């Protein structure tokens, strides 16, 4: 029972007018502490839907979901809110930053709703630290509209990390990034994973999935493949290799 995430024949059916959309149908999945999982699949295969259920944002319409051994369907709104606040960090596909507040305040947000009473100086300090982790400490005062897509993505990651969750969920954290920045973000995630955080992320790209330890492939709301990654790439080595390649290009006449 040490699994962080235990999905047992989970279903999610949307009723839109006449038609029923089976976004997720019968997914069973176990994710242990310390794993680094990539969920892949075509667009519309139900990845985001599944992530929302795992994140305790949405409820399954069928099956059982145990988070940290607790049956989520038995928990009320407030208990789910507390789980989202304290145990799960979520990075949205579309960032979902508050557009009218700056990066720092966006990162502070989860701490405002914490029950572990964080004193206000500590709130600021920890938010700055989280921004530093994603390399954006110098952009703390900028509003989302003044940041690039990649920077917004990293602010979202900082926000997800600030309450020191045990589980980090990221829905296409590299979806909007160029390949170099993508590798940087993967490096960040790898470091976090090494520190013991369980990570589940969604991605379209095979080469990004290669930085994780386990790949789950979905099609039409079902899991069709679930394999460990044979030779996992290391983001730092990859970055170093690229840098060298760049220098070679520059040196060439």
């Amino acid at each position, binding site marked *: 029972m040490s699994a962080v995430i235990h999905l047992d024949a989970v279903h999610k059916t949307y009723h839109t007018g006449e038609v029923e959309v089976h976004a997720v149908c019968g997914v069973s999945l176990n994710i242990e502490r310390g794993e680094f999982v990539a969920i892949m699949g075509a667009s519309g295969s139900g990845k985001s839907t599944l992530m929302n259920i795992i994140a305790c944002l949405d409820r399954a319409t069928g099956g059982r979901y145990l988070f940290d051994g607790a049956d989520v369907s038995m928990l009320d*709104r407030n208990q789910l*809110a*507390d789980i*989202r606040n304290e145990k799960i960090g*979520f990075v949205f596909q579309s960032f*979902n930053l508050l557009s009218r507040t700056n990066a720092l305040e966006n990162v502070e947000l989860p701490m*405002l709703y914490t029950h572990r009473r964080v004193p206000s100086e500590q709130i600021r300090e920890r938010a700055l630290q989280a921004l530093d982790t994603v390399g954006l400490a110098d952009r703390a005062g900028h509003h989302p509209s003044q940041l690039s897509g990649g920077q917004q993505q990293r602010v979202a990651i900082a*926000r997800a990390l600030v309450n020191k969750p045990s589980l980090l969920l990221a829905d296409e954290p590299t979806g909007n990034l160029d390949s170099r920045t993508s590798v940087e973000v993967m490096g960040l995630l790898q470091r976090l994973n090494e520190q013991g955080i369980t990570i589940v992320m969604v991605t379209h790209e095979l080469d990004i999935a290669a930085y994780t330890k386990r790949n789950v492939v979905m099609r039409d709301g079902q899991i069709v493949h679930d394999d460990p990654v044979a030779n996992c790439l290391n983001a730092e080595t990859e970055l170093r290799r690229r840098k060298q390649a760049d220098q070679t290009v520059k040196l060439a006449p």
Partner: protein
Amino acid sequence: MNFLVETSYWLLRILSIIRVALRALRRNKLRSVLTALGIIIGVGAVITMVGVGQGAKNQVEAQIASLGRNVVLVFSGNFSSRGVNSGWLSAGTLSVPDVEAIRLEISDVVGVSPEVRRSFQVAAGNQNWFTSIVGSSASYFEIRQWELINGAGFTDQDVRGATKVCVIGKTVAEQLFGEEDPVGHIVRISNVPFIILGVLAPKGLSIMGTDQDDVIIMPYTSAMKRLMGGTMLRTVLVQTDSFEDLNTVREQINDLLRQRHRIAEGKDDDFTVRTQEEIAQMATATSRIMSLLLAAIAAVSLIVGGIGIMNIMLVSVTERTREIGIRMAVGARSRDILLQFLVEAVTLSSLGGLIGIGLGLGTAELLSKVAGWPTLVPMTAVVVSFVFSAAIGIFFGFYPARKAARLDPIEALRFE
């Protein structure tokens, strides 16, 4: 100790929520002001109304006191029917025997005095002045609670003999004699010389706003015989034993005079009897009507203001559905969202309340300066209207806030 930590934590938390609310309001400055306008006008009207009402009340109380103690007034002519002005145009319907009859036949009456009044040119030495001459009996001073600061009053004997004596008001004394003591001097009224027996204590303005100290009082017999002519009276003052007797005495005078004037059953009175309070109420009718009007405006605008706040908060909740979704996604409980929107509504309405209080105080000040109404805004009225405007925010902000708090996080995040 733990309790203190707990409290200060919540205070800080609420302060930070208020900061967020203020920022949201500042972003839509014009909209916020327009929304708060109802509250501003409502509270402003309440403050003005209370100011006018309290000022009038104080003034009336002072003037009731200045009219005398436990006084019933009898006027010739009928105020309330067709004959409104007849009594004033004719010589008057009250006679000296009427006055005697009231004094002798009605128990609980401790003093009766006619009051005849006309303005004359008066002179002393080379000083001239135009003032009101009042003729009364000796009990007039007791009835009106009017003391002398100098000299003495006239007596019943002076009244019987129609002697040429008088007492003068403070204003007259100053105009004719300046710093000098007028007692014993002669004042010529319409060329008739009168000896000044005393000077009256200052009384200030009357209900009608005239200077009560600009007066010369003498025996009514002297005034009628030597200055004004005529034998009929227009006004009689009656003092009763106690406050409780006022209304019974009023009724008794009514019956007595109807009988004496031989007014048949079903015919209108040719006189009017009013107690002190009734006179005061008549005089303050305008400010009372004004107060009622303001109360109506206040009630309507406070309700409209509240609905305005509810409306704008509903709009705000819809506009910020995504924000609510984001906050819930990172762990805000329903209660946190409820509190945020409630605080925003209360901030809006109490700011409106504060501005309204300022507006009301300004209007009250202006009314007293320009219209000359005495206004007085008690501190309690200010505090109560502030608390009330905050309460309006809670009442009308609750529904939108609850709507926000009940949103489903995932639905809210999907909202465009």
